[in-house]
């Protein structure tokens, strides 16, 4: 039964014409490429001549200059930057890292922060979370990274609540007014694929360098999922709860305040979790515009190839990410539990009181024992140099070295470079035709039309070759990631225990700021193309494995039982029942892998690549806002092309299988 239903639906009556269209498109592409190889193709068909490329960057620059200066937007943004935003940032910076600004109270002793983190962890999830919360901050202090970590946290504590508030407000507006949603939706999908460098430059230009620009970029980066989760949650409120509210005589404001928002609590808190994680990821990345903190230090250490210190900072970032993620997720699932009647107030509020007590207690103790307040230069336990020697020694072992060197040589010479050169040798129109046929084959007509439009825009942007190099890195990494991630997922899904372990590992890995993935890549392969592909590869394997496990696990048991009773072997069951049914879910993972790859390829520009990322990074140094936007949009358009095709396919397939 299951196999039948998976094989039937594709044979739509129009499939004959679809094959013909595909043949036509691919034939034209092949013809063009062949002509190019035989030197028969006129040059203007191979690459667009310089003359026809419109000066988009300059036009954009003029537009931005107009908005910025003539319309006076710069005054508004500067006011926000120097007024309320800077005030908030200074306050948090004073409290956490001791910057000399109002209220001149900080820095708060590290022991007090660790203590409060422990109490919050306990309140949300018992002793294990308490140990994680307190342990993270104790580690940070002992390893001598307190100040850096607090520089990062002080921006986070301002950016995350701001992103939450703005996202919640916009989410409510989008739910209430259909036109707001119509305006927001396309903007959100572009925002979610836009490389982060494109967030950074406008922030720098409009909001001056330093923490303010970093905070603005971080807030903008973290808003989209909050909007989406808010709208989703509000739409899901049960109609009877809404009617109960109305029948209780709620006014509109009361409905929103007392019925809708509390009833959408779970989705809103999931949004909070995502806001926090995206904020952390972005705050770390603002190192590229010179914001001090863990990211900046990591960037510097990796730049000078100090692997030991990089490793230690990496651990700190990972610990912070895991702590913030686990705590906010625990908050999502935490349900209120009643107190017995007559419980005194100090028991009802005992968590708040304990936190307060711990906080004040450690502040007092820190007066007596300064070591609890801050750990000085000579006192910390950083083993940077030793780890450095250890790692480098390990990598220099003959066996290890032979393997990495061979891998590097093999991938570079036999796989990556030939692949890249092939892609580059294809004439622009032929390449566009290929992408269009891919989109048409996978997603149907609509994605194909968009693919044509998007890639034509990329061609006319004047950055074709670099776009292709970007694409080449993405494709190679995702293909390699599939070869690793999918078998891994299939293997793990065989047993329930392993599925859960792998899912947990993937979920944890997904909370790491993307920057982290550069560390092992650089460690193993040094600074070159292989390291870039390798870092994207690990980053992209995670969602592939995750959704493979997820997809296989959620195959309805009666289907696999039916397959068992039909006498299929394990292999037959996998190939003809489980995989076809899991494919739509796996497609989600595939899509995420591609999006992650586009994101990572830009970050990997730091290693020094020749793609769009490198050019993007260069724009940060200057004020070429127009060029920055053109480059960013190229990445976004390429990512959106794949996103649309894969999503269309997955949705169509899910409907055909009746899985939704």
């Amino acid at each position, binding site marked *: 039964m299951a196999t039948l239903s998976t094989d039937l639906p594709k044979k739509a009556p129009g499939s004959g014409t679809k094959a013909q269209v595909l043949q036509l498109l691919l034939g034209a592409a092949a013809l063009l490429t062949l002509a190019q190889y035989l030197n028969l193709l006129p040059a203007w068909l191979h690459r667009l001549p310089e003359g026809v490329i419109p000066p988009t960057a300059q036009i954009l620059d003029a537009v931005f200059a107009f908005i910025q200066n003539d319309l006076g937007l710069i005054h508004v943004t500067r006011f926000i930057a120097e007024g309320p935003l800077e005030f908030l940032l200074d306050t948090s910076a004073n409290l956490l890292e001791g910057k000399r600004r109002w209220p001149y109270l900080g820095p708060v002793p590290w022991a007090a922060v660790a203590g409060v983190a422990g109490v919050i962890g306990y309140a949300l999830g018992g002793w294990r979370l308490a140990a994680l919360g307190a342990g993270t901050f104790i580690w940070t202090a002992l390893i001598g990274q307190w100040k850096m970590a607090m520089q990062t946290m002080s921006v986070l504590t301002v950016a995350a609540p701001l992103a939450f508030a703005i996202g919640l407000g916009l989410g409510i507006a989008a739910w209430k007014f259909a036109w707001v949603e119509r305006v927001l939706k396309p903007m959100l999908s572009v925002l979610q694929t836009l490389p982060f460098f494109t967030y950074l430059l406008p922030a720098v230009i409009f909001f001056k360098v330093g923490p303010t620009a970093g905070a603005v970029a971080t807030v903008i980066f973290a808003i989209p999922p909050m909007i989406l989760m808010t709208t989703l949650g509000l739409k899901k409120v*049960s109609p*009877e*709860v809404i*009617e*109960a*509210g*109305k*029948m*209780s*005589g*709620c*006014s509109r404001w*009361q409905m929103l305040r*007392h*019925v809708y928002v*509390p*009833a959408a*609590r779970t989705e809103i808190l999931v949004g909070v979790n995502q806001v926090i994680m995206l904020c952390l990821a972005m705050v770390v990345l603002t190192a590229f515009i010179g914001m001090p903190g863990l990211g900046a230090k990591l960037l510097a250490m990796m730049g000078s190839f100090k692997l030991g210190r990089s490793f230690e900072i990496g651990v700190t970032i990972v610990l912070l990410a895991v702590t913030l993620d686990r705590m906010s997720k625990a908050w999502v699932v935490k*349900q*209120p*539990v*009643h*107190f*017995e*009647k007559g419980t005194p107030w100090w028991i009802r509020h005992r968590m708040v009181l304990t936190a307060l007590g711990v906080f004040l207690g450690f502040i007092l103790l820190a007066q007596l024992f300064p070591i609890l307040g801050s750990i000085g230069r000579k006192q910390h336990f950083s083993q940077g140099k030793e780890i450095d020697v250890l790692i480098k020694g390990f990598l220099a072992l003959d066996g290890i070295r032979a393997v990495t060197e061979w891998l590097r040589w093999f991938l570079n010479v036999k796989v990556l470079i030939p692949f890249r050169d092939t892609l580059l040798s294809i004439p622009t129109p032929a390449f566009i035709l290929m992408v269009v046929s891919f989109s048409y084959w996978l997603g149907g007509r609509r994605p194909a039309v968009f693919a044509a439009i998007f890639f034509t825009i990329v061609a006319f942007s004047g950055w074709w070759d670099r776009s292709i190099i970007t694409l080449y890195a993405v494709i190679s990494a995702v293909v390699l990631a599939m070869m690793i991630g999918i078998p891994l997922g299939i293997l793990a899904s065989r047993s329930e225990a392993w599925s859960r372990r792998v899912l947990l590992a993937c979920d944890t890995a997904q909370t790491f700021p993307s920057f982290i993935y550069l560390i092992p890549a650089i460690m193993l392969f040094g600074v070159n193309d292989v390291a870039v592909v390798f870092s994207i590869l690990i980053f992209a394997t995670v969602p592939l494995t995750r959704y493979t496990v997820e997809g296989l696990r959620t195959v309805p048991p009666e289907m696999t039982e039916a397959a068992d009773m039909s006498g299929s072997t394990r292999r037959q069951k996998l190939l003809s029942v489980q995989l076809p049914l899991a494919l739509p879910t796996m497609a989600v993972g595939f899509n995420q892998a591609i999006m992650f790859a586009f994101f990572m390829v830009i970050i990997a520009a730091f290693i020094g690549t020749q793609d769009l990322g490198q050019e993007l990074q260069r724009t940060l140094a200057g004020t070429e806002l127009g060029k920055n936007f053109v480059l960013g949009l190229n990445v976004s358009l390429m990512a959106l092309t794949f996103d649309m095709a894969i999503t269309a396919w997955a949705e169509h397939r899910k409907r055909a299988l009746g899985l939704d």
Partner: protein
Amino acid sequence: MPSSSPVISAKNVWKLFGASPEKYLANMAPGRSFDDIRADGYIAGVKDVSIEVGHGEMLVIMGLSGSGKSTLVRCFSRLHDITGGTIEVEGQDIMAMDERALIELRRNKMGMVFQSFGLLPHRTVLENVAFPLEMRGQDRHERRARALEVIRLVGLEGREEYFPRELSGGQQQRVGIARSLAIEPDIWFLDEPFSALDPLIRREMQDEFLRLQEMLGKTIVFITHDFDEALRLADRIAIMRNGAVEQCDTPDQIVMNPATEYVAKFTEEIDKARVVHARGLASPLNGTAVEGAAIDGGATIHDLARLLINDTRAHLPVADAKGAVTGVLQRQKALDLLLGDA
């Protein structure tokens, strides 16, 4: 029992779902059936319904799912705006009310109980019950006192601090009932309040409900798809199908004289003797001389079974609650109903 001026009065009420229902209804040819309307792309949730609910009456609306019973009740409380016709609540046209007036009406006059309870998950039992009071701005102590009072009334004392998910289904519905009673509404809407509950709990809740109703004497519109439930509770039953009311009458009449084939099919399986009361089966005196002890008109034929078999009189006098003889019951007719036609 129904008094002269109805509490709710609906005249030719239409509720259509679709693209532009008002326009469609205005231009619609009369006499179009449910299926005709559906073919035009509209769903007739409520189709030309005229019905009145008297003061202190319990009207049970029943029908299969999708028959429009929930839609009709939501029109009475203006949770749905109707497409055509008028609905008056205590003489006021509710479609003419502005938002403020409607909120005031709901805050003071109406209570509603929902099938899946509609409790606010983040509030305790006490806070849920006090919710309508809070919305109308009553002060904290007053609303706490009143909420505790209704919580006791529905038998949930001791659970005030619990959250809805810590309660069983039956207990959750008690909270829903308490909440709907907190503002002391004159009109009480119950939308299949017991159908999400286990049969045993359902029975218990029905008894509880009858006890409350006896105490409070409210005007009630009660929805159910369970005929037995309808028969147990109703003063009058309205049977709906495809948005229209097929018949609206007392349980006795519905069972004895079904107006349409659909209603007849509905009542086929029912043990009529358990439904029909002696007074419903009795014929008027019209000068017939009756003698001997009178039987209670409020008892069902089933209740009287033993008596009917033992008492050999052909005509039995039927008395009302005060003991006055109001009619005469033919023994043979009653026995036929009890045992089936010979």
